[in-house]
C-alpha cells in the first residue's frame, strides 16, 4: 500500500508538472501546423506568468489575472505574427527576440511596479487558482486502491489542469474534424494551394498564432498562479523549450503531445524524488541526467533513429504570393 501511495504521489506531481508543458506544446502545435515555427513559447509563457501574477496581486482576482496573462502572451504573438507573416522575416530570429524581450521586460516591470527584486508579491486567497475537489472525492477517499487514485490523482487539481487535458481532444477535433483545421493544416503544408482555393493564408496563419498565444497565456498563468504563488524571475525555466521538444517527440500530433508531455513531466517529478528511482531500479540515477533526458530523447527522435519526425512541409517559410 505504501508503494502504491508513493506511486500515486509521483503521478500526481507528474500531472502538475506536465500541465504547463502540455498547454505550451499544444500552443506550438497550432502554430507549427500552420507553418509558423515558434521558438518563442518560452517568452510568451514567461510574460503571461508575470502579468497574470501581477494583475492577480493588484486586483485580488485570479480570473482577471488570467485574462491579463493571455493578453500579454497575445501581444508577443502579434509581434511574432507581424515579423514573420506580414514582413516575412525569419521566424526563428523573431522567436529568439521574443524570448529575450519577455525575459528582460518582466523583470524590469516587476521591479518598477513592486520593487521586490523582480518578483511579485505572494498570491493568497482568491488571487490564486485553488485545487478543486471533485464530487465524492472525500466519500471514496478510504476505499482501497480506487480511493487514493481518485482523491489524490484525479481530484484536487486547479481548474487549469482540467482545461489543459480537455484541450487535447478539443485540439484533435478542431484540427482533424473541422474545416478550419483542415485549412490550418493545409496552410502549413502547401500555402499556395490554400491561396488558390481563395482562402487567406495570412488570415489563417494569424489565427493559428493567436490560438498559440492564448494557450501559452494559460500555461504561463498556471505557472505563477496555480503551480506556484507568485512570479519569480525566469520562472519558465526552459519549459517552453521542453514543450518544443515534446512537440517534435509527438511528431506534431495532439494525443501524442499528451503522452510526450506526461513523460517529460514524469522526468521532472522523478528529479525531485531520487529515492524512488533508487528503490525501484536499484541504480543511483544522476539528477543531471534526468534533467537532460527530454533534450537527449528529442535529439535521438530528430536524428530519425526511432521513427522519423517530419515537420509540416512549409514550416518556417514565409509565403510570398505570386505576382
Amino acid at each position, binding site marked *: 500500500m505504501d508503494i502504491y501511495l508513493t506511486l500515486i504521489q509521483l503521478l500526481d506531481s507528474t500531472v502538475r508538472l506536465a500541465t504547463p508543458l502540455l498547454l505550451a506544446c499544444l500552443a506550438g502545435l497550432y502554430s507549427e501546423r500552420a507553418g509558423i515555427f515558434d521558438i518563442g513559447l518560452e517568452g510568451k509563457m514567461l510574460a503571461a506568468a508575470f502579468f497574470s501574477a501581477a494583475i492577480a496581486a493588484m486586483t485580488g482576482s485570479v480570473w482577471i489575472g488570467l485574462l491579463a496573462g493571455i493578453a500579454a502572451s497575445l501581444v508577443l504573438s502579434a509581434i511574432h505574427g507581424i515579423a514573420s507573416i506580414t514582413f516575412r522575416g525569419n521566424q526563428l*530570429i523573431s522567436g*529568439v527576440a521574443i524570448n529575450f524581450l519577455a525575459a528582460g521586460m518582466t523583470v524590469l516591470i516587476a521591479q518598477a511596479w513592486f520593487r521586490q527584486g523582480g518578483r511579485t508579491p505572494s498570491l493568497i486567497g482568491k488571487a490564486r487558482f485553488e485545487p478543486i475537489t471533485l464530487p465524492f472525492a472525500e466519500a471514496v477517499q478510504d476505499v482501497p486502491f480506487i480511493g487514493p487514485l481518485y482523491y489524490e490523482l484525479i481530484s484536487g487539481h486547479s481548474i487549469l489542469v482540467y482545461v489543459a487535458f480537455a484541450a487535447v481532444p478539443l485540439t484533435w477535433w478542431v484540427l482533424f474534424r473541422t474545416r478550419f483545421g483542415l485549412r490550418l493544416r493545409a496552410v502549413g503544408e502547401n500555402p499556395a494551394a490554400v491561396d488558390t482555393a481563395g482562402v487567406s493564408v495570412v488570415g489563417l496563419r494569424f489565427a493559428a498564432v493567436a490560438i498559440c498565444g492564448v494557450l501559452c497565456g494559460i500555461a504561463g498563468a498556471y505557472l505563477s498562479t496555480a503551480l506556484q504563488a507568485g512570479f519569480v524571475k525566469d520562472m519558465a525555466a526552459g519549459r517552453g523549450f521542453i514543450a518544443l521538444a515534446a512537440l517534435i517527440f509527438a511528431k506534431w500530433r495532439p494525443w501524442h503531445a499528451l503522452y510526450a508531455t506526461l513523460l517529460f513531466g514524469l522526468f521532472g517529478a522523478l528529479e525531485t524524488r531520487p529515492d524512488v528511482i533508487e528503490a525501484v531500479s536499484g541504480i543511483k540515477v544522476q539528477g*543531471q541526467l534526468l534533467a537532460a533526458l527530454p533534450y537527449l530523447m528529442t535529439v535521438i527522435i530528430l536524428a530519425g533513429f526511432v521513427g522519423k519526425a517530419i515537420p509540416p512541409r512549409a514550416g518556417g517559410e514565409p509565403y510570398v504570393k505570386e505576382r
Partner: protein
Amino acid sequence: MDVMPKWAEVILVPLISLLLAAILSALVILAIGEDPVAAVKLMVTGALGSSYGWGYTLYYATNFMFTGLAVAVAFHARLFNIGGEGQAALGGLGVALACLYIPWPHWSLALVGAAIAAGLFGAAWAAIPAWLQAKRGSHIVITTIMFNFIAASLLNYVLVNMLRPKGAMDPASARFPEAVQLPTLHDLLAPLGIEFSKAAPANISLLVAIAACVVIWVLIWRTRLGYEIRSYGHSESAARYAGMPPNRIIMVTMLISGALAGMMAINNVMGEAERLVMNAVEGAGFIGIAVALMGRSHPFGVFIAAILFGFLYQGGAELALWTTIPRDLIVVIQALVILFTGALDNMVRMPLERVFLALRSAPKPGRKEG
C-alpha cells in the same frame, strides 16, 4: 535586383534599425519612471569614462566578438547556430582541463594550448548537431537549442562530481596555477607608458579576438572554402551543381562556428575567473546572435557590434549600481536589436527600397531597372 546602393544596404538599414531599437529602449526607460538622457550619460561615463570602464567594456566585447563571429560564419552558410551558449560552456571545460592538468611553463604556451582545447571542445559540441543536419536532416536550430541544455546538465555534472576540489561546497573547479595567468591590458600597456586600470579584466584575449576577426574575413572572402560557404548559403542547389559537397560545407562551417564560440573561454574562464564556475558563459552565446545580426555577418561589423554590446553591458552594470534600473534592461535592448535588425529587417528595408526606387526612376527614366 539591387534596388539600393551599397552604402544604404551596409550603413543606412542597420542604422535605422538601431535607431528604432534605441527609441523603444528610451520609451521603456521612461515608462519605468527613469530619465533616459541621464541613463545614457551614466552609461557613457561608467563604460567609457575611465580605463576601468573601458577594461570591462573591452572584456565583454572580447566575449561577444568570439560568439558573434561564430554565429556570423554559420549565417554565411545560412545555418542558424543558436548553440553558442553550449559550445562556449564546453570550451570552458576544455580550457579548465588544459590549465589544470598540463603543467605549462609559460602563459604564452598555455594560451595556445588552452585556445586549441577550447576550440576543439566547442567544435566537438557543434559537430553532433552539424552531423545530424548534414546526414539526417534534423533541423540545426532545434538540435543546437537542445545541446545548450544538455551542455548545462553535463557541466553541472562534471563540476559537482569531478572537477570540484575535495571539501569545497561551491560547484566550481580549483583555481588555475599562477603560470597560466594571462597578462591583462594593464600589463600589456605598461611598457608603452600607458596607464591602464589594474582591476579591469580585459586581457590579451582581446588581441586573439581581433586576430580571429581578421582570419574570418580572409576565410570568408579570400579562400576557396569561404567561397563555398557563401555559395552554399546563397543557393544550395547552385552549390551542389557546381560540385561543392553540401554535407562537407555544413560540417566544416559548423566546426569553425563551434570552435569560435568555444574559444570565448580563453577570455572569461582563463583570463577573468581563472577557474571554471557554473554558468560561466552568462548568455554571451545568445548575444552573439544580436552581434552577428547587427554586424551584418561581416567580421568588421561584428567587431563594431561587439564593442557596442560591451559598452551596453558595462553601462548596464553601472546603471544597476547607481539607479533602480535593473541590469535586465540590457536584455530588453538586446531583444529589440535582434527584433529590428533581424526579424523586422523587411519593415525597414521595404519602405527604403521604395524611396530609392522613386529617387532613381524620377530623374533618369532611361536607366536599366533592377
